């Protein structure tokens, strides 16, 4: 009798223990701290521990998000940012790729311009902002030029390394086969240097996004995620600022994922 009673109790206790353990695993894990911060933040605002004129609660950020999605402002901002991000990226990547290949293949040009480019590279990217503003104004061309500049160096450097690393025997074979300049580029240089180029492109995508945010602060005009954050700051709208931060982090994360996929895809043929 006692056995029969004890049994279900033991079972339930072990179930309870399992639940507690699962609970502990769940809440002893990485989600705890963010949830704690968000919860105490929300509570602190309602309890007036944080000045609600300055601070926006997590709930207010969600409200701002919904409002911005509804009137289409969010979409416009993201579209504008991504568009200039990609424009600058394509321009910078094409120039970087070309310069990298030319420098790697021509010892004369490399000798003349290589050290100079290495010197220019040392100038912190943001130090170009005043000069770009004088050359290109404060509008779209300036932003795109800044992003392209940020993209140029990683693409150029990685392309240069990749092309310099090509086994010289590849070029001997190309000579034997009588390949012309373009065939050499298409069938020897680009495939052999592709891993390094893909790495450069991947890095460049990430930097392009950082530079987009920077460009939207420095050349403040027009739509964009960074611009809307800047507006939010000027209007003391913490909810807009926090929403902007979330968007910047989220889009950066997505771009990173996409860039990784693209890199894998570009290198797929090597495994086959």
């Amino acid at each position, binding site marked *: 009798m006692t056995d029969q009673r004890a049994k279900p109790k033991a079972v339930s206790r072990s179930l309870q223990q399992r639940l507690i353990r699962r609970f502990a695993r769940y809440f002893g894990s990485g989600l705890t701290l963010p949830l704690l911060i968000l919860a105490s933040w929300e509570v602190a605002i309602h309890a007036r521990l944080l000045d609600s004129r300055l601070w926006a609660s997590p709930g207010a950020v969600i409200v701002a998000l919904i409002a911005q999605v509804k009137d289409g402002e969010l979409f416009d901002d993201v579209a504008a940012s991504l568009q200039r991000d990609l424009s600058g990226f394509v321009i910078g990547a094409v120039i970087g790729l070309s310069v990298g290949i030319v420098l790697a293949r021509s010892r004369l040009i490399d000798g003349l311009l290589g050290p100079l480019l290495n010197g220019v590279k040392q100038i912190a990217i943001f130090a170009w*902002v*005043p000069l770009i503003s004088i050359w290109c104004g404060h509008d779209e061309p300036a932003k795109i030029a800044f992003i392209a500049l940020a993209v140029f160096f*990683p693409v150029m*450097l990685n392309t240069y390394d990749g092309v310099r690393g090509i086994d010289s025997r590849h070029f001997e074979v190309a000579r034997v086969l009588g390949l012309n300049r373009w065939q050499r580029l298409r069938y020897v240089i680009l495939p052999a240097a592709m891993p390094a180029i893909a790495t450069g492109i991947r890095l460049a995508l990430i930097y392009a996004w950082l530079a987009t945010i920077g460009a939207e602060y*420095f050349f403040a005009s027009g739509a964009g995620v960074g611009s809307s954050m800047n507006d939010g700051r000027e209007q003391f709208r*913490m909810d807009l600022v926090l929403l902007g931060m979330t968007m910047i982090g989220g889009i950066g994360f997505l771009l990173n994922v996409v860039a990784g996929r693209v890199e894998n895809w570009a290198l797929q043929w090597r495994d086959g």
Partner: protein
Amino acid sequence: VTIRIADPSSQDIFCPHPLPAAIPDPRKEQADAPTPLAAQARRERVYRLFLAILGPLALLLLWHFAVRWALLPVQILPAPEAVARSLVDLATSGRLASNLAISVRRVALGFLIGAGAGLLLGSAMGLSAKADRFLRPTFLVISQIPVLGWLPFLMLLLGIGEALKIVIIAKAAFTPVTLNTLNGFRAVPSHYLEVARIYRFSPWQLLGKVMLPAAFPPIFTGLRYGLTHSWLSLVAVELLASTEGVGYLMVWSRQLFQLDTMIAMMVVIGVIGYLMDRLLSAAEALVLRRYGGSVT
């Protein structure tokens, strides 16, 4: 086929310094000197040096004459000699030194705070699996938002005073230092730990005699990235919100359309970036020679 694939963290416009391929050994070079191959290499070096001087010199002359013959208006590009003159002016008037001192102090303070916090957090996450599980998502969220993304938020919170600059610079150093410290401790080979277990090392002995020496090179690399990121963020934050410092000097000359001063400041910023990089690469080479291991 040796294709050097750049490590994502080693190349960075925000810290654009490829690592040295190898540490040259001066004794070896001397020993090789008399062979014809070495003579050829020396000729090659002289040729390259010649080209490296010729290229910029030609561009400088082109620049000079383009301005002289009014192909380029001075409002677009001032003459190189004007840039040199304002560089000398800045240096002799003491304006450069005083603003540079302010900027360097900001970087030093911010870097110390950010790197200290990064070392602590990275060690905690690298040495304790529990801490790692608990803290990593939060750290990833914080590091996912780039330094510039924090700027408007921190401006609202802290105003545009000194605290803002220090916090921004600290955040810039914090992320790479944490990541490299974490990965450095993670990458300590497991057989080192086994040997330590056989010798029955205490936890402190394990830390001091095994973990720290083994993880030191990657941690140092993290510190190096951290410092370059700090310098970069300093320039950005001084351009956006400052009334002194090298970045402010640029904004000020931009507003007065003193392009010569502006370009002179770009040169200064480039030279400092270069010196910082050389100094740290040399230190890193020393660290690698002392502690061995590969650069991560």
